[in-house]
């Protein structure tokens, strides 16, 4: 999947560099808006039909929601602090941080509704987050406990980093990671467009 994502961007970049006719640019906006809606309906369908995950959330009690909430707050504050050091405006750094590791969605959202430069930065930031998560999860599980090991993955603990979490921690933590990743994934398409508009 990662390779396909990179290929898609590369094909687009080559087309944009060499052969994109000027007349196509007008159509492009309509096409990408339609694609955005299609993708978001699909993401919504996926999130909404995860009844089992939402049922587990109820079984675990609402305190478990503190975990994605704290991960979200930590990510946003961290990104704003990092952005401050880099001289980025708060709306950009916070919206990029609100990708929570979901690089494809945060990248294309920002490229579409804000600027391609911020989209590219969001894409690379959230790819980096996923890579950092892969490295840190096993270390954190041993050093700081299973619950802390969930935190670097952000939204990716619903899918891509879940197998690693299940290996590095126990069954309870894996379920908590899935609930947390699902809750964070649901926040990405809401928070990114909201924060970029502050």
């Amino acid at each position, binding site marked *: 999947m990662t390779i396909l994502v990179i290929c898609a961007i590369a094909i687009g970049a080559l087309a944009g560099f060499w052969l994109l006719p000027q007349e196509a640019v007008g159509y492009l906006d309509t096409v990408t808006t339609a*694609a955005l809606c299609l993708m978001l309906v699909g993401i919504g369908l996926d999130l909404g039909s995860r009844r089992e995950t939402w049922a587990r959330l109820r079984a675990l009690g609402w305190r478990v929601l503190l975990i994605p909430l704290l991960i979200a707050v930590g990510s946003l504050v961290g990104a704003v602090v990092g952005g401050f050091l880099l001289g980025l405006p708060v709306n950009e750094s916070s919206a990029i941080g609100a990708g929570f590791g979901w690089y494809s969605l945060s990248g294309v959202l920002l490229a579409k509704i804000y600027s391609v430069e911020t*989209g590219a930065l969001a894409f690379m930031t959230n790819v980096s987050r996923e890579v950092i998560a892969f490295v840190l999860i096993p270390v954190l599980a041993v050093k700081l406990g299973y619950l802390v090991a969930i935190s670097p993955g952000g939204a990716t603990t619903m899918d891509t980093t879940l197998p690693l979490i299940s290996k590095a921690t126990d069954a309870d933590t894996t379920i908590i990671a899935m609930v947390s990743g699902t809750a964070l994934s649901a926040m990405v398409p809401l928070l990114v467009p909201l924060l970029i508009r502050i």
Partner: protein
Amino acid sequence: MYLILLSLGLGIAVGYLRPLSPEKARLANAATTVGLFVLLMSMGAQLGSNEDVLAGLGRLGLQAVILAAFSVLGSVIMVYLARDYIYRGLEQRLSRRQGRASR
């Protein structure tokens, strides 16, 4: 903006009220993938036709690593600080559910 929230809300509502059958879930997944790839290619095309951004990709890469590291650090600190409080709340439920004492 409204379009984003509307599309997402519509998807969630339909998905929650009528959970998808496996074939329909595959269809929805395919739709998401098609939409994503159109957007990725469009992002690529915008990148490719913007020489300022292309020239700045190295700088963006460094910024990306810094932003990611700070986001991860923030998340780790927050969860670490609340760890014991969260475990106290979960302990009963986890042990009841699995019929054993949890960590």
